[in-house]
């Protein structure tokens, strides 16, 4: 049973136990436009909440993706290196960025559920 939460910076996290799968929202990919490059964190990197963890680049600009919670990077989505455009076609599915081991579950308290995120982007 997974729960999906959202940040005000337009990342989503699918929580499964003490692991979170992180990506950017469909709203974010629409704002960015055509994604041409994604830079992912190294597996094993210890991320602090709100630290720049990944970079997503459109034709025009580069944008940071922030760590939504503190924790260690467990896995990254290698498919994005070969096909960055996946972020446009399936942002909240196969185009996940990385998986992180949640260090402190209390950090999840400040995140939004789907309804709150919808209101945030309305």
């Amino acid at each position, binding site marked *: 049973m997974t729960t999906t939460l959202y940040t005000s910076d337009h990342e989503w996290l699918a929580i499964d136990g003490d692991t979170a799968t992180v990506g950017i929202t469909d709203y974010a990919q629409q704002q960015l*436009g*055509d994604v*041409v*490059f994604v830079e992912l964190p190294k597996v094993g990197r210890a991320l602090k909440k709100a630290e720049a963890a990944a970079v997503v680049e*459109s*034709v*025009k600009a580069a944008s940071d993706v922030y760590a939504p919670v503190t924790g260690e990077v467990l896995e990254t989505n290698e498919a994005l*290196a070969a096909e960055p455009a996946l972020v446009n076609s399936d942002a909240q599915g196969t185009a996940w960025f990385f998986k992180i081991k949640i260090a402190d579950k209390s950090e999840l308290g400040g995140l939004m559920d789907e309804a709150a995120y919808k209101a945030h982007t309305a």
Partner: protein
Amino acid sequence: MLAHDQDSLKRTPLYDLHVSLGGKMVPFAGYDMPVQYPAGVLKEHLHTRTQAGLFDVSHMGQIALRPKSGKVEDAARALERLVPQDIVAIAPGRQRYAQFTNADGGILDDLMVANFGDHLFLVVNAACKEQDEAHLRANLSDDCIIDSLADRALIALQGPKAEAVLAKFCAEAPGMKFMDAGPHEVAGIKCFVSRSGYTGEDGFEISVPAADAERLAKMLLDNPDVLPIGLGARDSLRLEAGLCLYGHDIDTATTPVEAALEWSVQKSRRSGGARAGGFPGAEKILAHFDGGASRRRVGLRAEGRAPVREGALLFADSAGGEPIGKVTSGGFGPSLSAPVAMGYVPVSLSALGTKLFAEVRGQRLPLAVATMPFVKNTYKR
């Protein structure tokens, strides 16, 4: 705050059309301009390379230089006091690329100059147009009437289908060659048409009275081969074509020689030429021609997939050392599906194939000096 900023932005005569086409409007050079339409930068870029794209470039300045003597050669001679180009040699119906230079040999703006028979027609950058006009008034008023054509829009139609599309409205269009320019009727509207552009593709720029601009744009867009194109794709297209963006790749601190624009300075204005010098900064610019400059604008291709953008510092080695130069324009080239950039490097490191490194987010990414244009141009010569 935001509302105030938007209120102060100027609009081109095609503003309502952009909004109705779903353009994403952003501030650019004091104007509220479409950065992209729903198709997106990538598709807009590729569509221009394979079909045709319509660009609103009405924010650019259009200026007529009318000789007080009535002889266009007098306007040409006067303008030669401000640019290192041979303006006298521009035949009626032809256009040439030029730069306004300053006393230090730097570039104040780059522009197009056309000979319309009885006067010269100039197209200058949006961000510089007021300064350019003041510069012309201060220096050429004895010889010319400087007539700012603020009541005209400028529409670019670019791409391999541009000729066929424009031919339906302008019988003379197919007969024009690259850099031909003159007054022509388009759909019965009195326009100035030039066969030129800023994409590396064959195409046209059409100066049209503001009141007729939307009607003309809609007629051109009615053709299924034509998509509206925003500033995003305009930038990626010109970057692939190796064309300079003023304020980025050229500015008051770069001479035309450093900028690798020697081709734009005719022999008649260089040392030993019939009208050598006589433009601002001639001493420095001619010294650069004769003795070489120490740095040079070059094309850069990255080995990896990460775009290397404006401002990235360039290094000779993968670690250590001082920066040897800087990227002035860079991004992803949709036609190449790879990063492309241009920047300034020491002449000693400017040879094709020279391996360099660009610092991006703390990492040094390998790249190499490469031929420009990155994408072969398709001008109809």
